[in-house]
């Protein structure tokens, strides 16, 4: 009966219960889902995969789900690393990829209005043809959807200048759990009550389905130039990066790799085999402005005793920036690994790095800790730390227990030193248990919003620490 009601909305081609579709929606980029699949354990499967093509269809599906109290998990590209798109309570997986129309490129306002199921790379290509770009260029640009980035407050490689996705959104259309379709205000800066965009940004499909968004676009810059430095010590690199930001220069990229990652990944991908901390930065825009800013940033790095590796070594990094994420460069099974991305103010970020490193290296001698600092703000920066275990226990339950222990200890070390649970990958299934610890009393406000918008808890239950009822 449920199937025929859903079929009535989307048509028989856009609903599936086939084993191969259920499997494809039962493993996302969450290491534990991959572990479960690898070890022949049953991964959580939906009862139905539905592919709505319009906002109206989303709305009608949610009305049915709300009536029968069927869990609904939105699915974009499945590239999320936190298990956010896994249908842990079964029910409906709503695959968003068929809602992908590019509605308008407004060259006067420099905005684009587009459905959220669009593949980010496809959107960029369309905009490029029109001479623009969202400048949202994450490593997963080829695999993720706009909706996924909105849901996780994602970030791209040029975020230091152009912002994270939450800085790029002008307005959104959202379908609430009861099927109601709402629009946020047409501009994101106003004094007409709280900004509703920010309620749904980062809500990971727990408050509704984001179906359409208007984003800023930017002209393609005249030039984009890069420069690389090598610092004998990570702290000097951190100081240099901080000085660039506090001088209010506007780099599009700063990325600083610790000594371990410089040895492990920069060497492997870029072929730079040097001891020290590799730093790359870039500026884009009109050439004379870029040259001026470049000069100033170079001077700040010189002052911190960085060795100038030149522009070529910086350009190389840019050219190969996605290569790090492809096999065989990327870690994968049987290795256990996790990205402990966090963010803190400049006065604290160094301590967060050291505290997590110490925690992992002392408690888990079998693990390697590496990290880089990307996504810099006026007040602080993001740490993209990772742990890697080459030979985790063969037993999946033991491996899972070890994995969770590492996360708990490392993230508590981060929080104790002024870090947060996550910067751009989200919470999902993976970190939900730590949400109350992070937010304290403030978590009540999140729970209250959830309860009032989704009293039946149909939207992505089990995620973000919001419980399963």
């Amino acid at each position: 009966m449920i199937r025929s009601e859903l079929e009535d909305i989307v048509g028989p081609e856009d609903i599936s219960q086939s084993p191969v579709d259920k499997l494809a929606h039962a493993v996302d980029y969450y290491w534990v889902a991959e572990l479960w699949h690898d070890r022949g354990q049953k991964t959580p499967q939906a009862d139905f995969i539905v592919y709505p093509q319009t906002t109206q269809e989303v709305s009608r599906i949610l009305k049915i789900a709300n009536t029968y109290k069927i869990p609904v998990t939105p699915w974009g590209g499945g590239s999320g690393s936190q298990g956010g798109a896994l249908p842990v309570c079964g029910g409906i997986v709503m695959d968003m990829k068929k809602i992908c129309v590019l509605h308008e490129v407004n060259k006067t306002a420099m905005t684009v209005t587009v459905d959220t199921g669009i593949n980010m790379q496809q959107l960029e290509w369309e905009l490029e043809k029109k001479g623009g770009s969202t400048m949202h260029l994450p490593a997963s640009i080829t695999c993720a959807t706009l909706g996924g980035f909105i849901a996780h407050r994602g970030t791209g490689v040029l975020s230091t200048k152009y912002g994270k996705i939450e800085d790029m959104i002008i307005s959104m259309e959202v379908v609430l759990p009861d099927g109601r379709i709402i629009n946020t205000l047409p501009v994101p800066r106003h004094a007409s009550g709280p900004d509703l965009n920010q309620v749904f940004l980062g809500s990971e499909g727990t408050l509704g389905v984001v179906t359409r968004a208007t984003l800023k676009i930017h002209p393609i810059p005249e030039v984009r130039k890069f420069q690389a430095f090598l610092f004998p010590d990570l702290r000097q690199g951190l100081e240099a990066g901080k000085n660039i930001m506090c001088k209010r220069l506007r780099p599009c990229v700063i990325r600083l790799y610790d000594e371990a990652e410089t040895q492990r990944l920069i060497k492997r991908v870029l072929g730079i085999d040097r001891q020290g901390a590799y730093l790359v930065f870039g500026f884009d825009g009109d050439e004379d402005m870029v040259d001026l800013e470049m000069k100033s940033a170079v001077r700040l790095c010189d002052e911190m005793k960085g060795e100038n590796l030149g522009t070529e070594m910086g350009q190389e990094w840019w050219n190969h920036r996605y290569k790090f994420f492809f096999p065989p460069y990327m870690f994968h099974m049987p290795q256990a690994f996790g990205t402990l991305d966090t963010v803190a103010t400049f006065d604290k970020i160094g301590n967060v790095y050291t505290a997590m490193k110490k925690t992992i290296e002392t408690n888990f001698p079998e693990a390697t800790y590496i990290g880089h600092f990307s996504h810099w703000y006026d007040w602080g920066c993001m740490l993209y730390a990772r742990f890697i275990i080459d030979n985790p226990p063969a037993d999946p339950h033991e491996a899972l227990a070890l994995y969770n222990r590492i996360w708990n200890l490392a993230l508590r070390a981060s929080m104790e030193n002024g870090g947060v649970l996550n910067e751009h990958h989200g919470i999902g299934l993976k970190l939900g248990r730590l949400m109350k610890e992070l937010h304290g009393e403030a978590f009540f406000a999140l729970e209250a919003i959830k309860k009032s918008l989704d009293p039946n808890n149909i939207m992505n239950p089990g995620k973000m620490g919001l419980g399963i009822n």
Partner: protein
Amino acid sequence: MKTQNKDCNATIDACRYCFMCRHACTSGLVTATESNTPRGRALALFNVREQHTAYDPSLTETIYNCTLCGACKQWCEGKFDMPALVIATREKIASNGQPPAWARTIRQSLLQQQDFSQQDLPEKKADVLFYLGVQPHPRAGEILKHFSKIMSAAGIPFQTFKREPDHGKILQLLGYVDDAKKNASILHAQISKTSCSVVVTPDILACLALKNEFPSWGLALEPKIKVFHVSEYLLQLAQQKKIQLKKETRTVTLADSELASDPQGPAAAARQLLRLTAGDCFRELPKPENLVLATGEAAFGMEVDCRPVANLKETLEKRIAAAARQAGAEKIIMLSPRTAASPSCDGIPRQDILEWFAELI
């Protein structure tokens, strides 16, 4: 049914953790489904390999929905060969008689005519054998006329079969390797009887079969017989000034074949030929999309219309046409009559390279 092939295993192991070519995958984009992407396929094939699950009709469908366009391989940093994995899997599926109905229908039609004899051989002998390779084709007669026009302008006689055996490539791509070899051996025998020294074919699949699969199936043609795709042969004629050509004045572009990207192969020859005759009027399709354009040799080769994937042909055509428009091309040249069966590609005229060349005489 364990997949033993080492390379295939590497692909299964890598792809099932990776999403990084999803934006390029033809079948993934057209169907907008997870299971029709390299990763979706690898996830399911891993389960089969590890004997967690068995083949089921939905997995079979996914494996046959792959267009073999190779866009994933082009994009993949590790150069994992998903098309090879798909073909290897189809072989396993076919050996168990489980391919989808549309594939079984194609097989039936390709196996129907196996009783070739002396009567099907060319009437007159000549050094050059023109092997159409795309029978049945709605414009087979016209294709032959174009080739005749070129050859008479060059003053070179040629022979052609009265009835052509199939080359086996389509059967191979569908996983029916034994049947493919059977058909290929008939063609091999018929070619040997013609005593030709040159085989020219306008069809990419036929060309690939004769050059690559025949030797690997133990059916290598006599060493004196050279095989050419028409673009390679026509390039020679043009370079040797055996024919006078008019200059092309319309802007033209070339839709590469995903199956013939070898830098020494037919696509490279076609490109050279177009540059030679069209000069500044030749336009390359824009990158980076050019990298991910499946022009459809593989998909059309398997009679794309028969496939249950809605809009596959239209989507492939739209992508090519959009890129051609961006390049400012008035005409799209295809490498094979198979992919130029209808004269327009989403509103832009298109021709196969043979017909285009004949018009310039």
